């Protein structure tokens, strides 16, 4: 299980498969771009720096997934949810979707329970506790992290996501890539 945020690739490498081995659904209205197989093949064949950047994205996905395994495997309810909130804060901030430590939170309590392997009751109790401790504010589908340091201390989150390094990417033959994306 995973949540995608704007800017994420929905598992780029699936172009290798003939059939998807998992399904993807939307929770809120989404703008989705379909990248045709030949565009990926063109990138991997002729644009090594872009390819490397895409590999970097896959590494981030892997790191996030490992944290989710630890979440389900060994963290308590409050730690799992605190981790999810901190993780989304980091990921959404990276794509400019955080304002005043707040971000859109379209998930229902059942969505959170389902993905975190918790019961609805555990989720509602945990949210009440986190609110009670002044760590979060959640209303009208907007989550505000009121005290990031304290929330992190709930689980001693370390930002182990590999930081994006190659910021000044050159995008050679941009028009060729863009036109194949648009035409796809």
């Amino acid at each position, binding site marked *: 299980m995973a949540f995608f945020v704007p800017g994420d690739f929905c598992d780029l490498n699936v172009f290798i498969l003939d059939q998807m081995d998992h399904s993807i659904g939307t929770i809120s209205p989404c703008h989705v771009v379909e990248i045709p197989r030949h565009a990926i093949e063109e990138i991997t064949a002729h644009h090594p720096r872009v390819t490397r950047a895409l590999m970097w994205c896959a590494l981030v996905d892997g790191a996030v997934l490992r944290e989710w395994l630890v979440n389900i495997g060994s963290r308590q309810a409050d730690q799992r949810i605190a981790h999810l909130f901190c993780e989304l804060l980091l990921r959404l901030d990276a794509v400019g979707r955080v304002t005043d430590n707040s971000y859109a939170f379209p998930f229902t*309590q059942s969505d959170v329970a389902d993905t975190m392997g918790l*019961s*609805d*009751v555990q989720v*509602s*109790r945990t*949210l*009440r506790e986190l609110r009670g401790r002044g760590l979060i504010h959640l209303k009208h589908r907007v989550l505000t992290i009121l005290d990031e340091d304290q929330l992190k201390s709930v689980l001693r989150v370390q930002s182990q996501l590999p930081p994006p390094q190659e910021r000044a990417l050159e995008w050679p033959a941009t028009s060729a890539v863009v036109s194949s994306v648009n035409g796809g």
Partner: protein
Amino acid sequence: MLVIANGLLVAVLVRLDAPDHERPGDWYMEAGFGRLAGARAPLFATLDEATRWIRRRLRP
């Protein structure tokens, strides 16, 4: 509420009373033991419902 089957404690049920629960007043399986350990139980509107669910799960 302690649930005893054949002299053994198999579950602990609590009545949800906080207003922010989806169905306050329902019974929630706070803990399950033995075969019920880790089981994902639904909320129960009545203790009868809970008893029936637990009996089904414990059937050999």
